[in-house]
């Protein structure tokens, strides 16, 4: 009877099987990796209408975050400053720099500057800045060293895993409330210890149930 498959086909079959198996594993791994927020969301750095440098303002000039993002202590939203805030200084400083044209435009027309949002949470997530600041969570924990970024990019994944990690064990991210906007703060001892003390003293127990963030 005619031979359809030569002896070698056994090996071919085995190899094919192996390749398929490994391939599948790789595919799954790749999918998981490339859809993981750390990979797809971090590093997002859109072009802003005005090349505003946080490094200059927050870093070198040492403006407190609160000077511009003035609602963080009172409200859920960290408001982007009004044009008027920029003009507090820029009526004198660099008052005719071409790069500031959009700002002057806005100031004149009253039309807001269309800043591009970088740190974005889904609409069903109810993050509240004031709650976190009053607990002593620093800007750094979620936004990174903004004071070292010329143009801001997203540093942390800001995914649910990240939130939960801290909500389950807040100590490492908690610091004295007066230092939350001090991005370059270097603790004199293990920050976890400091955090743990504050957690104990403030009775912090961040929610880990659904309605803590989803409503």
């Amino acid at each position, binding site marked *: 009877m005619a031979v359809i498959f030569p002896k070698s086909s056994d090996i071919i079959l085995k190899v094919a099987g192996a390749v398929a198996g490994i391939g599948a594993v790789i595919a799954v791994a790749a999918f998981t990796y490339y859809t993981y927020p750390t990979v797809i969301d971090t590093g997002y750095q859109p072009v802003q209408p005005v090349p505003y440098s946080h490094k200059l303002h927050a870093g070198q000039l040492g403006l407190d975050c609160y000077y511009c993002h*003035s609602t963080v202590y009172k409200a859920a939203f960290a408001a*982007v400053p009004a044009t*008027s805030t920029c003009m507090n200084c820029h009526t004198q400083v660099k008052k005719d720099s071409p790069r500031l044209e959009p700002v002057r435009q806005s100031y004149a027309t*009253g039309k807001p500057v269309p*800043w591009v949002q970088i740190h974005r949470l889904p*609409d069903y997530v*109810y993050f509240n800045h004031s709650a976190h600041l009053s607990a002593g969570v620093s800007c750094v924990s979620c936004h990174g060293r903004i004071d070292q970024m010329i143009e801001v990019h997203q540093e942390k994944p800001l995914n649910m895993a990240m939130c939960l990690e801290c909500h389950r064990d807040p100590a490492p991210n908690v610091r004295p409330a007066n230092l939350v906007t001090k991005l370059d703060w270097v603790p004199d001892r293990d920050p976890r210890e400091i955090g743990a003390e504050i957690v104990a003293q403030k009775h912090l127990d961040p929610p880990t149930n659904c*309605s*803590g963030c989803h409503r």
Partner: protein
Amino acid sequence: MSLITIQTPNVTGKKYWRSLNQLADTKEFRDWVHHEFPANATEMLDGNSRRTVLKLMAASFGLAGLAACNRPVEHILPNSAGTEADNYLPGEPFHFATVMSIGGHVTGLLVETHDGRPTKIEGNPDHPHSLGAATAIQQALVLGMYDPDRSAKVLQGGKESTWPALESAVQKLSLGDGSGLRFLSGFVSSPTLDSQRTAILKKFPKAKWVEYEALSRDNELAGANMAFGQPLYVHPKWDKAKVVVSLDHDFLNLDAPTPFFTLAFSKRRRVGSEEDLDKMNRLYAVESQFSLTGANADHRLRMKGSDVQQFATDLAAALGAMPGLNVVNNGGAADKRAKFLAAVVKDLKAAGPEALVVAGPRQPASVNALVALINEKLGSACVTYTKPVIDKSNSGIDALKTLAGEMSAGQVSTLVILSGNPVYSAPADLQFPVALSKVATSIHLGAEEDETSAAATWHIPEAHLLESWGDEASSEGAASIQQPMIEPMYGGKTPIEIVNWVTTGKFTKSHDIVKSYWLAQFTGDKEQAWRKALHDGVVAASKTVDPIKVTVDTKKLATALGAASKAASTGIEVGFYPSSATWDGRYANNGWLQEAPDPISKLVWGNAAMISPKLARDQKLTDGDIISLTRGNVKMEAAVMVQPGHADDAVSISLGYGREKCGRVGKDVGSNANLIRTTDGFYFAQGFTLAATGKREILATTQERGTGDQQHDRPLAREVAIDEYKKNPKSIEEMSEVPEIHSIYSEFTYDKGNQWGMAIDLTSCTGCNACVVACVAENNTPVVGKDQVLRGREMHWIRMDRYYSGDENDPEVIEQPIPCMQCENAPCENVCPVQATSHSPEGLNDMAYNRCVGTRYCANNCPFKVRHFNFLNFHKHEPELVGLVYNPDVSVRMRGVMEKCTYCVQRIEETKIKAKRDGRREIKDGEIKTACQQTCPAEAIVFGNINDPNSRVAKLKKQERNYAMLAELGIKPRTTYLAKLRNPNPELTA
């Protein structure tokens, strides 16, 4: 819009605060008129929705995270004026006080706004007639503001015109001495408008100003006039009364477009502690239709509306109130009546100064007069009278009749109709449309393009309550200023502006008119007083009208009564009632109200001719059979609904339906009772012939008729007579046996921190829909439309269950609000495969919409069926405009996910965060109020921390009559009920 829904399924209101300033140039805004409204949810099954399949597939990938590869650019548009401007915080709610009046009942309101858009209306705690409570209708007003069908254009002869055209027309008006000038307005309770009126009538001596309300307080004034010789407002002091006899007065629902009556009445109904048991009042109701007042009455006597006069006379006679009156005992069926009468008389006498008899606005002057007489005879301290501050001499049907006469006689050259719809609501026999056609220039100010705007020569869009400056003063004097939260969206104008414009020819903003009026009233620092008045919502300076001492002139009254022709009650009687949803039709285009079930019949999206079971049997009619009602040359058709406890040989039908020219929501919903409403039978009329037409209409109710109306001997909504309860306080608890349940696992102990719980007092709950609408407004629950309700898909997170018991001719009714019970052992939780619903350490049954895959297992396993599934995308066809009403603190749920009550967790979390900001952990009792609790005029719903023994809720739960429904399932509900206590008269129960 649909794209937004695709990209981020759970679109929250948050999205809109940014888009508000972009709204003006969105396509949605320009052609919102052509948009589907959620009420047409049934349309979601149409062809074009099928085409979205691919989009959705795309969406599904998007949701899987791939969309993030090409992340959509989102802009942040900061308020360029500076966020510091009057300490405005983006995203944080602000509250403004304002005021509204329906048919002369004034209520102060508090409006919550987010980033400049009103999102919720609540009662103003500082207003004497609200005290924080608001009715269903009042709360639904906010949706009305975003109604895409609101009038936005000037119309001339029903066709689109322009403001300049109108302006020139106004300039051309030659008013002369005003002989041809007439104003037709609703019930005027605005001091500013009144002052304008006085000025006008001085300037144009021959001009006339007529007030007409389809549902008014005219009989109240006329009655006083008959009794005391002068028109007076009657102010029952419900909270002082121990025995209340209501003669066809549904003061707990339809006849009170204000929370105030329930508020006061329930003070003597609530049982907070043991001693309250003896303070509890007793309510007798005499009525035709089965009303909420009848449902809450301890004893109810049903009779035709026209027989009430005889009953009142007999009551007065039995009390020896007036010589020459004697009890007519029309025997036979009257046996029950006689017994009832005797008991009432005895009880009233015993109560003396604590006795109160009230007559409904539906009852003629004579009955109101008799009631005044009776109260005087009883020496009741529960009623006061005040003179109308604002003149009412030219108000009511007769005034309208004369006006119509003048109009058809061509004596009226200029008619200004201020925010009313007389073409629809005027009595049929006045032929108002014909009369109107005889008027040279008729200017109609109206909120929507309605029957009148089509017939008038000019139509002017009216600004919504929340867009307009104005003021209202209650009949007791409490004056408040109406302030807008937002610029008129469609450039609407207010009555004040129009009156001023038409009569002076130049346009002044109502803000200036109102302010100048009030500054004139104030003394001292006027500006300061003005700001304070705006802030408080009540004008501190406003002098409360002092009640006056009056005595009945019996002789005059006797003659008057003799003259008052008592219509012989023959044939079928038809009674006309306000609608719990549309009032007199003005709220017909409001989806929230159309879908709020009628408290008794549970009917939604329409009205019906209510008839008694006996009449139904005699005429061989069942629910949905369309009948015709004919009397002389008036005729209408309506579907019947069999109403247990309804008076025989009588038909009750609510006004405000069958609107022909109306927005998409209210158009042709139900049938128009104004067609058979005539001046001689304004509230009820005799001698109708009832005939079946053979046609049928499907009526949508939220409870299965018949079987769903009974409790089937299940201990669900429990009640007990107060005496029995005193004898055996355990009787409630004993109605069901709750076994000890021992889990093999060590159970979570809910004993730390806040443990949220709720107690609902069935004794004070009247069953009004305030909580239902409050919940809709707070939690963005969608309107699904009649067809979907028929399919059993309504979405109310808190619903009002209504059970009948006893004889179908004289049933007892118990109402039971059903929110989520937040079971500690929630059956819904352990069946969810993806943990979309799980328990919070504070005892809440959390629901994460964005985690739900929609297996519906939780809903199946919920014994209370309080979980609601988004069978379709109920928000899909919504104009962006309607989206603006959403509460940004609550996700708007996409289709395919389950949703439910969470004790307004957004409020809980907000308050906790505020507390943390203030550096405290513990929440004060009453600091958090759920939406339903906050608005409840009867304070029947109490929410709080059951872990704190001193909290109100914990105290209530300690009462013996506290029980958990279906506790025998071992589910440990957090929401418990306080059994209904009835206070029957032993003489009638024996």
